């Protein structure tokens, strides 16, 4: 009996505690920078698209919501002709971001994507492409050294940067 009364008193005292509720539309949620929200396509420091149309993201996608068609410009540089993500299917798992070899596809902390029309959730390349380098500022895929050809060391060529330390966990 006394323990019941004590329980009731303790529960009553919760009236004066700080409430856990976040009143969402007025009060925004404080999201982590690595929160997996809307998917974007980023650009490299020179303003060119990072995406090379390798299809790895489309392969990695467990719900097959990414569709793209690779093509080449006059210098032989690959880029996606169209790049389409169906966000009504996307499960925001981030596998595409993991799969991307050029840091082009990234998930950003924005989840406010509600639409009245389902078709509006299909994002085309111009909707996805943002004018920013995303989480990896200063990274340019074509400037980072690739294979050693026996002529000079990695990262010593013209317009070439030092190789990435693949064992580092830092982005």
């Amino acid at each position, binding site marked *: 009996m006394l323990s*019941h009364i004590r*329980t*009731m008193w*303790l*529960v*009553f005292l*919760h*009236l004066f*505690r*700080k*409430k*856990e*509720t976040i*009143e969402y539309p007025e009060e925004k949620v404080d999201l982590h920078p690595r929160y997996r929200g809307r998917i974007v396509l980023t650009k490299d420091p020179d303003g060119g698209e990072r995406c090379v149309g390798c299809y790895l993201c489309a392969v990695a996608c467990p719900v097959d919501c990414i569709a793209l068609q690779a093509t080449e410009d006059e210098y032989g540089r690959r880029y996606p002709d169209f790049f389409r993500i169906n966000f009504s299917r996307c499960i925001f798992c981030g596998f595409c971001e993991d799969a991307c070899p050029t840091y082009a596809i990234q998930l950003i902390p924005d989840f406010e994507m509600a639409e009245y029309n389902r078709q509006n959730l299909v994002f085309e390349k111009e909707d996805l492409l943002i004018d920013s380098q995303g989480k990896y500022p200063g990274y340019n895929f074509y400037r980072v050294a690739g294979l050693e050809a026996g002529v000079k060391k990695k990262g010593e060529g013209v317009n070439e940067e030092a190789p990435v330390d693949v064992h580092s966990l830092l982005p």
Partner: protein
Amino acid sequence: MTTTQQIWIVIGVLFVLLNIAAGLIWVERRLLALWQDRLGPNRAGPLGILIVLADTLKLFFKEDWIPPFADKWIFVTAPAIVVGSVLLSFVIIPFAPGIVVADLNIGIIFFLAMSSLGVYSIVLGGWASNNKYALLGALRGASQMIAYEVFMGLSLMGVVMLTGSFNLGDIVMAQQHLWYVVTQPVGFIIFLIAGVAETHRLPFDIPEAESELIAGYHAEYSGMKFGMFFIGEYLGITLISAMIVTLFFGGWLGPSFLPPLAWFAIKLFFFIGLFILLRASLPRPRYDQLVSYGWKILLPLVLANVLITGAVALWLRGVRL
């Protein structure tokens, strides 16, 4: 008192009661939320009170479905019985001097009779649903009601003996100097426990126990018929709170800087809050625990209370045996 006045009292009491019962939807959700460190419904209208309107509209527009395997007529009448019997019980409660629908000299007996009738709605509702969970709920409701009805009546006998009347107005007037909660603490606690069991509120919501019986006796009900069970439950809380206030806490009596009706309302809402706090804090006992607790502990206790109260009352009046 003229007939017109009486009609106005009837309409006023009905209006206020139904509004309180509907408003309790909001009160309960807000209070429960606050006690669980949440905010609760606070969007529609000032402090979210229009959630009541939204809930009611939702209930009205839901499909009013009668299962093809149900016993149609009993299925439809069951929810009406609970609301009807609880509303009839309010007839005897003196809200303020002069504001009482029927000043019966058998007030408490009438209240007990009506609250016993309420169990028919559970039994019939559960039976007519033709659903095993509903029937189990009805079964539990019936045995819980039999167990708790007995000492609910007996717990009030102490008050009746001290007053010498079944009339609630007389009982209130007899508490001018001392509330009965002081002289009848055991009676008060047992009546409170029995009242919670009577209204099937948590922690004694054995007949509907969501986690065991889905929704128990009203598992098959939808729309406004479910709403009637809901309203009946809130009316039941209000009724038991009003009875506690009247019998043990001096009814409308209070210092004269507030009108009697205000004192009644303050005490009433205190006990409604207590009911909701009970729901927020205590877990549900097992079914057999509840029944054996009733028969083995509370019944002997209340019998002893009746005996001792009777003896003391006789001794105070100087009766020599």
